[in-house]
């Protein structure tokens, strides 16, 4: 899998030197192995810090909203899940495509550092990756054991790219993405209420989920805008914990590509993707299969209708 990184660096160098692109958006090594952060490389020598390994879970498409406004073209590497977010941002005119040169890169699942901690691996500096395994500090793990939640259920295919660097067939998803949603739906209302009250009470309103989410690109969020009527910086009551996450999930409903970034970055490990996946599973169940970001022109389910839609009173599927 090491070949991918070297191929990407060559590609970047070639395009930079040919002047076709002026900047490269990729990942940069941090002090620790898993401390990888998105970075814009402006010159070929700066590419020495460039890395693409099992820890590059971050979705780069949202940075392009600002970057594509600047002069000159920018090269960006998009994992399959990132490409869906990229398409969704193109559909919403947030990225102007001419300033962006996209390269699809192969991804066989990215590692969840917290799962490494659970397995007693600390202070990781590097990892050797093959299609199905990751060896860290001499210990070999199966991908299923330590990769991110969003990668376990990933069915994404690389989309809309000018070039692609991919050598192996993509791994099959291990889990059905709606499994936990179905488990929650099967619970009684009290159990569900308790589950979410417990989860959402941990929320410290750091807004990481909002800042990383490629669908959340408002210049001024309603929660920051005093004029909106629901402005609030902190959750000073259990109600506001629910209010923030319900409204955020509703605003991205029909536009969320299920890229899983919100759960990945949440410092409190709240399974926020379960909220968005509930909307996605409802939309698929009620209005037909819809994957946001699959194309750049279709009307989202919440800005579309059919005269025969189901009536709200019969929507409560499942029991209790």
């Amino acid at each position, binding site marked *: 899998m090491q070949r991918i990184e070297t191929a990407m660096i060559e590609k970047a160098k070639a395009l930079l030197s040919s002047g076709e692109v002026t900047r490269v958006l990729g990942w940069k090594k941090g002090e620790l192995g898993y401390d990888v952060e998105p970075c814009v490389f402006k010159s070929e020598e700066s590419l020495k810090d460039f890395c693409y390994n099992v820890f590059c879970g971050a979705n780069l498409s949202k940075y392009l909203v600002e970057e594509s406004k600047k002069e000159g073209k920018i090269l960006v590497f998009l994992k399959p899940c990132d490409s869906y977010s990229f398409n969704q941002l193109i559909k919403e005119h947030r990225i102007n495509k001419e300033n962006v040169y996209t390269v699809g890169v192969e991804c066989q699942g990215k590692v969840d550092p917290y799962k490494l901690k659970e397995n007693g691996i600390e202070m990781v500096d590097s990892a050797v990756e093959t299609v199905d395994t990751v060896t860290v500090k001499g210990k070999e793990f199966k991908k299923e054991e330590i990769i991110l939640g969003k990668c376990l259920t990933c069915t994404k295919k690389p989309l809309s790219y000018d070039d692609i660097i991919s050598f192996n067939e993509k791994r099959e998803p291990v889990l059905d993405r709606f499994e936990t949603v179905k488990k929650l739906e099967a619970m009684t209302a009290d159990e569900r209420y308790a589950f979410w009250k417990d989860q959402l009470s941990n929320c410290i309103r750091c807004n990481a989920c909002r800042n990383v989410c490629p669908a959340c690109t408002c210049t001024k969020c309603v929660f920051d805008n005093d004029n909106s009527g629901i402005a609030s910086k902190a959750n000073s009551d259990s109600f506001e914990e629910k209010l923030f996450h319900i409204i955020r*999930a509703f605003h991205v409903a029909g536009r969320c590509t299920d890229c899983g970034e919100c759960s990945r970055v949440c410092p409190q490990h709240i399974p926020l993707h379960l909220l968005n996946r509930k909307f996605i599973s409802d939309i698929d169940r009620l209005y037909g299969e819809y994957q946001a970001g699959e194309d750049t022109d279709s009307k989202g389910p*919440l800005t579309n209708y059919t*005269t025969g839609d*189901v009536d709200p009173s019969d*929507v*409560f599927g499942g029991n209790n």
Partner: protein
Amino acid sequence: MQEMNNEKRPLIVAFCCNWCSYAGADLAGSSRLSYPADVKIIRVPCSCRVNPMFILKAFQRGADGVIICGCHPGDCHYTTGNYYARRRMSLLFSMLDYLGIERERTRVEWVSAAEGAKFSAVMNDFASKVAALGENKRLEDLRCKE
């Protein structure tokens, strides 16, 4: 909950679309078809004007039940307004149920300008169901309770 002759009275906010359900409410009034005084109606141009923020704000401020009334799909004065409302409310109320909020606290009802009796029947039924549930504990904001 209002303290009215010491038994708890539910507070219900009804968003009624100006062209059909608000007219239906007026017809219920002119036909003297009563429903509980706990139901308070807010007039909106169309059911598609109702924003999830308003519904959650109502619950936050102490409402025990929120009902959205609109024209029958196909009869909307703005042709497609209630189609969008239908989808939005279906998803929103399914999410509230997913979070464990009692289903009977929220409801969508299509009432035409000629259905005064239906409007009164719906409000009576909804008010009794919400009263049966008791005070809204799961979506309350303690700062708004005295």
